[in-house]
């Protein structure tokens, strides 16, 4: 059973693999289509950032369970230069590389939880979680 997956990101195309694994895991856990795509897009953004801003890193996907709910935790970890100002990096349109600057703000909106720990010169660890919408089965008699 797929419970935890690691994808090492050192080249551009690895983000596609991270995304594929995220979609697989989401499908496996019964995520709805929209939630699965939100997750997959967020994973792509985090993986692309690893490659672009940190010279590579690792994406880790993990299944979370809590009462009546399943979720997926994404950890993007690198030992790159770090983010100087996290608040600024989360702002719409902020980019140090001529990007649209909507990667991290996008991740924040697409995921349910987001935590960024970064230390200059040491690296960055971003943790994001997506919970599957809880679907209650209602039994009806006709």
């Amino acid at each position, binding site marked *: 059973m797929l419970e935890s997956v690691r994808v090492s990101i050192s080249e551009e195309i690895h983000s596609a693999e991270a995304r594929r694994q995220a979609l697989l895991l989401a499908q496996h856990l019964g995520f709805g289509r929209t939630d699965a795509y939100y997750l997959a897009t967020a994973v792509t*953004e985090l993986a692309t950032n690893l490659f672009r801003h940190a010279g590579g890193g690792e994406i880790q996907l993990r299944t979370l369970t809590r009462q009546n709910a399943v979720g997926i935790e994404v950890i993007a970890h690198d030992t790159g230069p770090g983010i100087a100002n996290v608040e600024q990096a989360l702002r719409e349109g902020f980019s140090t590389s001529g*990007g649209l600057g909507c990667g991290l703000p996008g991740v924040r*909106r697409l995921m349910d939880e987001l935590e960024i720990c970064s230390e200059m010169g040491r690296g960055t660890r971003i943790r994001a979680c997506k919970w599957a919408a809880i679907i209650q089965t209602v039994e009806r008699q006709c």
Partner: protein
Amino acid sequence: MRIPILRLGDILLTSIQVDLTDAEVMQFQTDVLHAIADIEARGLVIEITALEVVDSFMARTINDTANMAQMIGAEVVVCGMRPAVALTLIEMGRGLIGVETTFNLNEGLARLNKKIAQRGDSSLTDDEDAV
């Protein structure tokens, strides 16, 4: 991998089916611009039905290509965005794709033809001697 560009009259049709690397994006943009210039295309359709995920990099690629195409005189429509992709893009940030989008290719072509007609230069090449 090189992205094919098809010609339909004076409209060009291209379809992005896989993730593109930086180098492929550059190649794609150069190819599109040359193709537009070569046949003096008046319209460009970028078809993205096959894309499961449009991230910010892909959005930028599409926007930049569209802007360049418009700069050299082609109207641009993006078509075939999957509903889940559209929802994700809206959630990520409004206006991430700054180009007109349509559901399918038919609509895309119709929209493009309308835009070209509105532009009022549809007989430009035919009238050249008159200028």
